[in-house]
């Protein structure tokens, strides 16, 4: 019996009049990699951004339904957005480190939380960089600008930055789409390693990538969750005709 980390219940989302997510219901298992796949514009990013309530900032957005994390619906009014976002970290499509030092990038989440203990902070920064497989490349230049790193290194820095607040879940939105194959491979391996300690939800365009690294896959089509299940099964014997067509390259 798998333990579930996040439960999505009848999630509906509109941008203005346009419904983007339709009755999405599924559960994301704890300490596994769950891939969200689907053609461009089907709502993958939008769904991912529901998990840390990043869609709240968009104008004219309307959200109905529940997402349960640690037994609480994150869409309840009493939810503290700051603590939610520390529990649910996010890594974006394009590496977006702050124009600050490497150290300050990783320390950012703790600093906004008001974390003062200098020694402990240094330890956490080091651990996060190690967990993101970046430590050896940057340990001698923690104070130089993050902008000097390569794209792949910047993306791993963003992962370290997200790890520093010790999240339960980490959301990846096509984290490798702006990277070369080598850097991509490294991030893929890293995701697999990360699932020992966190739940990974990864949006990807790349079916091969989903098949390689994910344990579970959700196929989203025109805002509907068409199929969700163990990746091996979904990729070999898809239950729905649309999944089969998508995997066969018919659209998207």
């Amino acid at each position, binding site marked *: 019996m798998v333990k579930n980390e996040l439960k999505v219940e009848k999630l509906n989302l509109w941008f203005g009049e346009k419904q983007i997510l339709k009755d999405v219901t599924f559960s994301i298992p704890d300490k596994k990699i769950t891939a969200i796949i689907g053609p461009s514009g089907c709502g993958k990013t939008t769904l991912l951004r529901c998990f840390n309530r990043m869609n709240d900032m968009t104008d004219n957005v309307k959200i109905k339904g529940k997402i349960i994390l640690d037994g609480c619906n994150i869409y309840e009014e009493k939810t503290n957005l700051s603590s939610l976002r520390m529990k649910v970290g996010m890594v974006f499509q*394009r590496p977006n480190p702050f124009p600050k030092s490497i150290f300050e990038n990783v320390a950012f989440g703790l600093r906004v939380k008001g974390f003062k203990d200098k020694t402990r902070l240094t330890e956490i920064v080091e651990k996060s960089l190690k967990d993101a497989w970046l430590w050896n490349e940057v340990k001698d230049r923690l104070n130089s600008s993050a902008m000097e790193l390569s794209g792949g290194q910047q993306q791993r820095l963003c992962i370290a930055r997200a790890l520093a607040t010790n999240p339960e879940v980490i959301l990846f939105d096509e984290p490798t789409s702006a990277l070369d194959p080598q850097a991509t491979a490294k991030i893929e391996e890293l995701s697999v390693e990360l699932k020992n300690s966190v739940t990974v939800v990864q949006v990807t365009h790349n079916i091969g990538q989903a098949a390689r690294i994910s344990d579970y896959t959700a196929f989203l089509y025109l805002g509907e969750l068409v199929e969700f299940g163990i990746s091996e099964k979904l990729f070999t014997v898809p239950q729905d005709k649309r999944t089969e067509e998508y995997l066969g390259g018919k659209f998207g």
Partner: protein
Amino acid sequence: MGLRKLKEILGINLLRLTIFISILFLFLFIILIFAKGAKMLSFSFLTQPPKSGMTKGGIFPAIIGTLYLTIFSVLFAFPIGVLSSIYLVEYAKKNFLVTIIRTAIGTLAGVPSIIFGLFGLAIFVITFGFGVSILSGSLTLGIMILPVIIKASEEAIKAVPDSFREASYALGATKRQTIIKVVIPTAIPSILTGAIMSIGRAAGETAPILFTAATFYTRKLPTSIFDEVMALPYHIYALMTEGTAPEYQVPIAYGTSVVLLGLVLVISSVSIIIRFRMRRKKKW
């Protein structure tokens, strides 16, 4: 050689000619001012007050006056300008009122400076009773450069990529923390460049201080912000229009011009250096 080719060559040379004309005037300008004024420069010119009915001595009180006016006007306009631009970019909704405010700020930037002078006279000197003083002059100059600072900071803040804001929110930062810890530090080089450019403007304008702060002659240095002061641009103006001994005073006016020009050049090169150093660092 075809007609098209001929036209092209003519066109390019016409462009070259226009550039040449602009540069020619720039050179003439610098050469003239320096030729007439540089010989006046000396240590005592910079450190002594005027003497013998403004026909001898230096311009020290005017340098000090201009420094005070400039510093106070920037101290007044910079925080207000930056905070307004933060509000306009980060908080203001896109409604009719905000559009009006934006347009008003844009228009204000184009108002002739003498009008600011009259405004300052009416409001600060008379209504508020600050008299002809550093305070009135700085506030007037401050209001004049305010739209420039707002525009520059607005551009700077808008240029901060949204991906930085998103990253900050995603790490649990509030809007306020995001603005303070991410947006402002990222935008500050460009904000400062804008502010420094406006310092040059504040230092050089005569009209806004004409009725609000400047005096033709005073030997003493200001002791409070309610004192009137001499100022470099006004000093030039006064020497050239109200002088009684032009053979001595015109060279002093040119010498003062060189000092003022030097001051403004120094300020703009500082801003160029800041911009250059920051641009090397940012690559987003």
